[in-house]
């Protein structure tokens, strides 16, 4: 595994982007905190923070792209980036793991126990006498009131197909890039972005329906909590992925990337596949089962 360094490893001398990013994060969460604690103006601070973050991303990536085009990045540097991205995705997996864990734990343990199964007999007898375990549920106290769930075989199935095909299109795009066929690259990558947007649009409708028609909200007991937190965080990741894809699309348009030197493209592709896989888990465990 020990790397043969060909030429010196490029070490940048100084950067002012990270500190901007730190201020960005600081304003964002600080503003959010103020806002949540009923201090309206907090949201402006939040906007400022997001702006800082965006400009950091822009500036940081511009610098990196410049260096990349400037040919400063050896194979070894490239490997560092790849490892960085892989481990970042791994950390994302663990983040979703926490919420899937919550879903499994409640479905397999807490709800049955509240319903009096196994170890829960006493809990049910003394505290929740007339509660029978079931899924979906909003708990013995019916938190959030009567609700309906999202049928799996409608929009969710459609969204599954959309995401899966977007996984295919991006792979085709990758092959096109490898083959040096820029035209197909742009078409298929564009298609991927469109599919992503489509997915988000459907999910937005789904949420609206849940809130307006089904009385399925974030406050709908444990079902609503897990449903919206899981699909919500996934949706955010799709959004992020779609944005990154569009950036890559414009870079392709500007003629960036070569047949064998296009890490940014691959990184985004990996990320997109990750988002894809997470959705499969969601579809199965949140909607179908």
């Amino acid at each position, binding site marked *: 595994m020990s790397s043969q360094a060909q030429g010196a490893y490029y070490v940048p001398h*100084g950067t002012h982007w990270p500190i901007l990013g730190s201020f960005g994060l600081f304003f964002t969460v600080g503003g959010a905190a103020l806002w949540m604690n009923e201090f309206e103006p907090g949201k402006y601070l939040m906007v400022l923070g997001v702006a800082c973050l965006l400009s950091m991303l822009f500036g940081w990536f511009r610098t990196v792209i410049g260096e990349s085009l400037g040919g400063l990045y050896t194979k070894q540097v490239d490997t560092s980036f790849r*490892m960085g991205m892989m*481990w970042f995705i791994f950390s994302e997996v663990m983040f979703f793991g926490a919420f899937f*864990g919550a879903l499994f*734990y409640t479905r397999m343990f807490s709800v049955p*126990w509240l319903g009096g199964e196994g*170890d829960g007999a006493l809990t049910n007898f003394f505290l929740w006498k007339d509660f029978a375990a079931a899924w979906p549920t909003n*708990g013995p106290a019916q938190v959030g009131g009567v609700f309906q769930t999202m049928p799996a075989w409608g929009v969710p199935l459609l969204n599954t197909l959309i995401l899966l095909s977007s996984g295919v299109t991006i792979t085709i795009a990758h092959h096109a890039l490898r083959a040096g066929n820029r035209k197909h690259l742009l078409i298929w990558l564009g298609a991927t972005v469109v599919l992503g947007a489509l997915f988000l649009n459907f999910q937005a409708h789904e949420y609206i329906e849940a809130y307006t028609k089904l009385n399925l909200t*974030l406050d709908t007991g*444990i079902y609503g909590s897990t449903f919206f937190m899981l699909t919500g965080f996934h949706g955010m990741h799709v959004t992020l992925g779609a944005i990154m894809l569009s950036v890559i699309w414009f870079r392709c348009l500007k003629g960036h990337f070569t047949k064998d030197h296009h890490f940014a493209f691959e990184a985004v592709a990996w990320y997109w596949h990750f988002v894809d896989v997470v959705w499969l888990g969601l579809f199965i465990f949140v909607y179908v089962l």
Partner: protein
Amino acid sequence: MTTHAVAHHDDHHDDKPHGFLHRWVFSTNHKDIGTLYLVFSFIMVCVGAAFSGVIRTELMKPGLQFVQPYFFNEMTTMHGLVMIFGAIMPSFVGLANWMIPMMIGAPDMALPRMNNWSFWILPFAFFLLLSTLFIPGGAPAGGWTMYPPLSIQGGDSVALMVFAIHLMGISSIMGSINIIATILNMRAPGMDLLKMPVFVWSWLITAFLLIAVMPVLAGAVTMLLTDRYFGTSFFNAAGGGDPVMYQHIFWFFGHPEVYIMILPGFGIISEIIPTFSRKPLFGYQAMVYALASIAFLSFIVWGHHMFTVGMPLGGELYFMYATMLIAIPTGVKVFNWVSTMWGGSLTFETPMLWAISFVVLFTIGGFSGVMLALVPADFQYQDTYFVVAHFHYVLVTGALFAIIAAIYYWWPKWTGRMYNETWAKFHFWWTMVFVNVLFFPQHFLGLAGMPRRIPDYNVAFADWNFVSTIGAYGMYLTPFMFFFILWHSKRHGAPAAARAWEGAHGLEWTVPSPAPFHTFATPPVIRDEDLAHGDISH
């Protein structure tokens, strides 16, 4: 700046950037960033110690003399959070930054810009966390474990606490990604994985643990946030959730976390003891495998923090057995350290003193850990000062001692100057005495039945609490001693040789002291005899 970098990154390597901003805030240099981490954690240790000062002072005598109970809980909570996330973790990352590239012959960390960001998030995170002390409703007071429903009864501080932890998480994750990429991708040709210093190994494994569990903590506190502000029911039985579920998620992070705080310490001790024993580390490979198996086990024992929540019998038995297993690989390490000393040619410079005391006192902490693992006994120990004694032995005389040992060990390499051995030894013996006066009586208090996280107690606990507080007051002098010794050395210390310690091996000792601003800009030629573990055949 691109062009600047292109133009200049080859010539004039050694002139450090001028001006505070360019030198420190914009830094991409692993040594400067390492220094930033260490300075930051030093400040945090003092802040955390100050909080413990409030705790110990209130607990000196029965009756409430100084603070209201709620404020006491704020102090306990902040003390725990600051010490763990602000003191121990950043100082280990600082040491990683300084040493890993030098130990594996790399020009810098793999991703220098991200390295800067990893650090510069921290001050903001702790500004957020500490700011809660000054807002109406006060700081979080639910303990560093933040168990709901209590933790979400807290006022406006909840959001700030949660976001602060998110930022710390981002920082740790980026730092760890950087460390892994550096170790796997930046080793000089010939530095095989099994020739790496144990410190590097320990960090490779620790970084993996961090990437695996920090996101889980982020998830757990996010659920706290939504339960508190957005009406979700994750931890509310009435809504089908379960308060105990938080504890499972938290401790799935929390237990690996405690090993995150000790594994780099193991690495440090495994560097120092061979140096001053002038004898190769006993069972190098066994040490590496032990590290790996401890890391693995740490993922499957979290339930031992929850023996009293009423898990099914099967679960309790499983977690007891799994937890006890950890004594085996840890034992291997302890025995290997002892065997390294055995048959060596020992001298007792300051780093060695700290290392030896680490082995003894950490082991004592480990022993109480194994006692805690015995479920029926834990029913009595849990949430008493016996636990407090346990984790201070592993954290203070374990993690913190390792950090101090490392600073004394590598200081000459960093600054090119030796420190005053006599004063350093005084610092050691002073700490040695008072840390035990401080924490050993807490075993007795716990066994006698004193619960933790209480501001006042029955008079039967008065005597040992008084003793413990005296110990604490003794400890509060140590940061000043330490600071003075290091400051004096920087000013007036005798120049240090490249190989500052006679028995020292490893690449870091092949570069001059102080280490030039950029080391190994081109990979060094590895000569096995330079390495501590160059020849793993024995």
